[in-house]
């Protein structure tokens, strides 16, 4: 019950933060240099007096800023972010079309990351100073430092062109085809993520592995699976969950370099192209979506803490 109250409070705070973010996002149009009507039309060349009048009426540009925000917010709550300046298509449709690709890539790369990074980090942390630890540390450094676009080209050349195991580009159609197409991009994205999460897991494990209760458990011949899985991993999981959640949240908002390299029509590419073209309605929508995703994941992480650590549950109850 007390956890439910905690979650409810966090949800209220989340809504409040989203409102503030939405106002700042709305103000992007006013902050951009130039007349908002001309920006929304796509430039002075399209700004005939009649077109300007129409846009000013449609977007309530002659009303006070707070009134404009209210009309805009009402649209947002109906998932109506207006039309893209570049394509004239509804912004919602553009995002709706691309989000599944970005989400599939993010989830796929996350699964690969977790399956590889956590066991590796755990092993490295437990066997500190050994060859395994040094290999994992060096590998993480390389994975973190390697430029994504170079990795992408390398993987495409080896696995798509030379070996022909995977397609060179595209997102595929249908579930199986999409998984097939997204394998190389997911691996590319996962390499950097594995580096981060493995290092974090290793650091957290090192701290826990030297605790007295772990030593006692080992001395008392508690099975290794229980010691490392139940004791060490669970106690080391809080920072690992935190960083994993944030990694997934950022991946969900678009991994631009991977999308560009594999020609994936995702949200990252849409955002960069929209910024370049000053397509404000699209920028507003993606920014708000990003804020929502990150806030949601922070909440999920915080709730996960309670599931993992009973001490925190008692802390909330106190």
């Amino acid at each position: 019950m007390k956890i439910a109250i905690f979650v409810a409070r966090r949800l209220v705070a989340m809504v409040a933060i989203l409102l503030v973010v939405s106002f700042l996002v709305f103000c992007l149009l006013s902050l951009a240099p130039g007349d908002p009507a001309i920006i929304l039309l796509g430039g002075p060349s399209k700004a005939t007096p009649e077109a300007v009048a129409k846009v000013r009426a449609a977007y309530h540009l002659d009303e006070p800023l707070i009134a404009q925000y209210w009309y805009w917010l009402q649209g947002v709550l109906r998932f109506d972010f207006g039309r893209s300046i570049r394509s004239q298509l509804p912004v919602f449709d553009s995002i709706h079309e691309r989000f599944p690709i970005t989400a599939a890539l993010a989830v796929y790369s996350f699964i690969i990351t977790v399956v590889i990074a956590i066991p590796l980090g755990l092993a490295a942390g437990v066997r500190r100073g050994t060859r395994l630890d040094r290999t994992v540390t060096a590998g993480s450094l390389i994975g973190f430092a390697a430029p994504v676009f170079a990795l992408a080209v390398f993987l495409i050349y080896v696995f798509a062109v030379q070996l022909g195991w995977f397609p060179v580009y595209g997102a595929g159609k249908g579930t199986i085809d999409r998984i097939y197409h997204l394998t190389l991009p997911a691996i590319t994205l996962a390499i950097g993520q594995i580096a981060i999460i493995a290092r974090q897991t290793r650091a957290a494990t090192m701290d826990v592995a030297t605790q007295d209760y772990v030593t006692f458990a080992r001395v008392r011949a508690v099975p290794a699976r229980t010691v490392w899985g139940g004791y060490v991993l669970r106690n080391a999981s809080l920072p690992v969950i935190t960083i994993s959640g944030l990694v997934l949240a950022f991946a969900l908002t678009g991994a631009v370099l991977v999308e560009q390299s594999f020609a994936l029509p995702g949200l990252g590419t849409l955002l960069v192209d929209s910024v370049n073209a000053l397509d404000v309605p699209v920028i507003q929508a993606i920014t708000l979506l990003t804020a929502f995703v990150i806030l949601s994941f922070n909440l999920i992480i915080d709730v996960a803490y309670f599931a993992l650590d009973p001490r925190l549950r008692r802390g909330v109850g106190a």
Partner: protein
Amino acid sequence: MTKSTTSTTSTTRTIARGPALACVVAAASLVLAGCASGGGGGGSSTSASSSSSASSSASPSTNDTPIDSLTAAIQSPIQAMDILKANDVPTRRALTLAYDRVLAQDDQGQLQPMIAESWANPTPTTFTYTIRSDAKFWDGTPVTAEDVAYSAQRIIAPDSKAAVAAGWGSVKSIAASGNTVTVVLKQPDNGFAYRAALDWFVVQKKYSEAAGADLGSPTKPGMGSGPYKVTSYSVADGATFDLTGTYWGEEPKVKQVVMQTIPDPETARLAMVQGDVDVYFDVPLAATRQFDKASEIAMSYVTGGYNDMLSMRTTTKPFDDVNVRTAMAYLSDTAGLTQPLFNGKATVAKSIVPAIQISSTINDPAKTDQFYAGLPAIPSFDIAKAKEALAKSSVAGGFTVDLPVDTTQPWMSPYAQNLAQNAKQVGITINVKNVSPADWGAGLSDPNASPLQLLALGAGTPSPSELPPVILGTIFNPSGYTTPELTKQLDALAAAPTAADTIPLLTPVLTTANTELPYIPLYDEQTALAMGKDYVWEGGYSYWAIGQTWPEYIRSAS
């Protein structure tokens, strides 16, 4: 045509080329080009130094075997299947498959019949088009003069937001009567003739009015009369076009065209090596080195209408002083940077008019050389002479100025950095500022922006009179340079009845431009096309393919 994703500036007819990611066709045919294409006439897979035609001259043997499916890649998405909503070059590559134009352009950019079987220019302000009787839309209904007139009326409608509308600014009225469409202009405009080939895509009035604001969207892609109908379209996934089988003209040999977006040239190259992509348009010139090495790919390089310039606002100090402008010309190592910036696939520009327009109009290499020999030469790189010129000016001690560069146009930043390094040696400090394409485009016509700008333009027509009246006139003139004498010369140029008549009128205009240097001409860029070795572009690739139903030229290699 603007290659840029940036909006066209003001009512300029010139359009700046944007990044290779989105090329927008400029209203008045000048394109702000961001695409790293350029073209030079002639020369297929070898770089054309001073070619005179816009076509490459490849001639491997071909056959007429039908091609079941061809995959073509472009660098940015097809934004909409409607010219009013999107007029960038990648979008046009798709529009020309689905929609006929009133007139077509041949490999020299000259006008040919299409939906109009004939046309006339009975008075300087009247154009009449006789519409063919056998053209049908995909739903079987005939293409009428009313549909044709409607297709243009919606461009010039008062609330039209079309970027191409700026090129129709001289149009007073468009009316259909019987099988004829008559366009009446407010004043003579010899550039208007090409609008029928560049922008006048024929759509069905009934379908378009019913679709309303959704016309050109994935749910309402449109009703055209072109050889291909739109089978599927989405901005994210690309489009698939299939032959209708009922086209009034000669059907292309390619039964299906799949158009996909691949922003990264290296990915496109690997996809072509693998055989997943058959054609890649507008390969960025800086990336062509790797394409040249791939044995599975045949490259075509043609000079077209893409030219680059350094612009100086002559109404702002210190660029109001011709000695300063001359000094800047001496500081530009234009020839030396051709290889690093464009892989050698560009020529040093000799005037502000794209070389292809002069060479294709004169149509005689010796006479073309003679024409250029009669113009003052643009100063070439010489630090000592730059110092001398600056010493004669009002700012002999040097000055500081910003130079905005569009981050998505690969050549701009290295060129600007090099210019800044050279300028430092004579006491001029150039602060290179990276800006977005939108800001770059906006800065070109903002009187409060930096007086020093880089311009990237692209021609839409073969006529040499296209550019000077725009960039030295009143519509889009970043340099602000004008004199009463020059204005008279430009009016005469714009009113010249044919392209050939423009040549003698060009000499005084370009003499002034090359002497006063409001713009320092830099490069005539080439355009690069990559094709898989299984296919051939019949007759050789042409810069004017942007306005053609290009699958008509694709054949299987024998």
